[in-house]
């Protein structure tokens, strides 16, 4: 029993199966809400799963110049590193793994997919994917710092570097959530960059560089990559929920899970709203925006948090 339970955690809940199912649901909601806002009908609820099955069943084409082992293994690395993250975030009661400093591990694990996107583009050796991967890296320098700074603000005010303890702190002091609203907005915008969604979807802007870093990917490998991106959205929403919004409010069991679902859906809907409202910006404009607006706001947020921490 002691060995079966962790395996079930990893494979079923909150691991692979749950994340995959919830990610496809979130993708559908994202697409449907976008469609309704844009005055379209939108896809049926099984569309993301149908897309995934279609990609899985298609032929995988590997470019002649590409490094075959690297090219084939990268999608799985991206998926694995993202799924690992969920074990440190509260989904049902307490998280599976929790220790001082796990938020640093989470941010580190969430950077790995971005690096794999870069490697994916670089190892494909096509001009479009090369430019796409350069943009992935350029964009990384834009959003990574504000994202981490905004998390740091919450960690300072909660006096802990553990995600679970931060959410516990905000549950006990709900008013402190209001203090962190600027940081919350910074985190939302930065995660829009991390997820490579409009307005920060330059790395795979289809009108400019076809498929960007994924141009040469096809079939199963592309399906895994797209699933990884969908799961990344769930993980980021769960992380933002845990760090900024008080997580599950210390409610374990079914109601805690219901709170998790509702709050992550709200975060995802806000991300969808950003996507619908804006046009795509250039990569240099994105980096400029991050360092001109997001980073200063995050730093001010940290100063406010420090002041409150020392005064009260």
């Amino acid at each position, binding site marked *: 029993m002691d060995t079966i339970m962790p395996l079930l955690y990893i494979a079923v809940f909150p691991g692979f199966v749950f994340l995959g199912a919830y990610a496809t649901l979130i993708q559908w909601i994202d697409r449907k809400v976008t469609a309704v806002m844009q005055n379209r009908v939108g896809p049926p609820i099984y569309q993301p799963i149908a897309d995934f099955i279609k990609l899985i069943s298609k032929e995988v084409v590997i470019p002649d110049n590409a490094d075959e082992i690297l090219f084939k293994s990268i999608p799985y690395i991206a998926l694995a590193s993202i799924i690992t993250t969920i074990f440190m975030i509260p989904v049902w009661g307490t998280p599976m793994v929790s220790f001082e400093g796990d938020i640093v591990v989470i941010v580190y694990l969430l950077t790995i997919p971005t690096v794999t996107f870069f490697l994916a583009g670089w190892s494909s050796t096509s001009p*479009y994917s090369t430019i796409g991967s350069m943009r992935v890296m350029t964009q990384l320098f834009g959003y990574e710092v504000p994202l981490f700074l905004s998390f740091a603000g919450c960690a300072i005010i909660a006096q802990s570097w553990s995600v679970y303890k931060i959410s516990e702190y905000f549950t006990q002091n709900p008013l402190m959530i209001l203090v962190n609203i600027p940081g919350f907005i910074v985190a939302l915008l930065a995660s829009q960059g991390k997820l490579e969604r*409009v307005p920060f979807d330059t790395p795979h802007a289809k009108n400019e560089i076809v498929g960007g870093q994924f141009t040469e990917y096809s079939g199963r490998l592309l399906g895994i990559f797209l699933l990884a991106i969908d799961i990344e959205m769930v993980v980021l929403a769960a992380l933002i929920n845990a760090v900024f919004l008080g997580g599950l409010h210390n409610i374990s069991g079914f109601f805690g899970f219901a709170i998790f679902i509702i709050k992550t859906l709200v975060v995802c809907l806000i991300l969808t709203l950003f996507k619908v409202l804006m*046009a795509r910006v*250039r990569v240099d404009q994105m980096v400029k925006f991050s360092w001109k607006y997001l980073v200063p706001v995050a730093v001010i947020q940290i100063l406010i948090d420090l002041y409150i921490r020392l005064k009260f």
Partner: protein
Amino acid sequence: MSKIQIPLGPQHPALKEPENFMLVLDGEQIVDATVNLGYNHRGVEKAAENRNYIQDIYLIERICGICSHSHVSCYINAVEEIAKAEVPQRAKAIRTLVAELERVHSHLLWLGVAAFELGYDTLFMYTWRDREQVLDCLEMISGNRVHYGINTIGGVRRDITKEQAEEILKKIKFLHERTSYYVGVVTEEPTFLARTQNVGKLPKDVALELNAVGPTARASGVDIDVRRDEPYFIYDQLDFKVITHNTEDVFGRAVVRVLETIESYKMIEQILKNLPEGPISVKVPWKIGPGEAVFRYEAPRGEDIHYVKANGTEYPERVKVRAPTLANFQSIPYCLKNGYLADAIITIAAIDPCMSCTDRAVVYDYKTGKKEVFDWEGLRKYSIEFYKKKGVSFK
């Protein structure tokens, strides 16, 4: 970082028609750009010589799917000039009405395409939804959404009833409101401004030198519009402004187009409220000429020029089309240079290119790498030889 060459097309998600742009990139910056035309050559001019004047109307209408009325009106005006036909006022008014509805539909379509190229899918969906209204108007008048087939030599084929006029006025009022909203989006939305301002700069002197026409030229501050400078149809009786803009960039081109749409609504209202009475067409003999005529016409994309040479038979001897895109294409390499790759697509889209209107073929000998442009006599000789080999004889 070494320079890389990126092909934009002939197969590319952002291009609606096959066309090739070779971009030399230094990082994200474009160092050099070349335009390669010729993927879409259909030989319309040659085909026009084998058909009579009436058949040519339907052929020339199919030069372009968006400005179909423009091309055919331009051609018909040239033919009527040779035949010395007096077109009734009511026919002229209906032609003007269709022309302005077409401009509205073309500009709304462009706004949607531009928004799509910027990744602004919401604006794209909104404008194309509203564009359906103007397509409905055109369908009501002519029976068709795209190739209206309303022109005939000597007039128009269908009349407009009072009910139709009222229905169009109602739809135009709705569109006027929506377009006023788009004026706000184009001039105020921060990401739209960030992507269009100072992009694809085309200074006034360069625009004049490269013979830019239409909204592309007007956005560079060149005050030209055939509708005002050399009025045809009933434009001399209408009250409208020629919209110019002095920012010389993609933003200016967007603003010019949106404001022009609003001018078109005003014109449509004027036409429908003072629709002259009378017949809608006159008879014109089948055999026309001899003679020749050139006609200039302000299509939604710019000045369209048709040259028709008649030789006294029912077939034209020569029809030459200078589509507005051909004039505007000259400016694209200039606009692309020193820009970013991300802006290349919107810079190309900003002239509202219509590749199939403009394409001409070049003979390329792949063994010697020699390019050759045929002159008329050479092409004629070549085609006769070509068909003789296939067993078609010319007497």
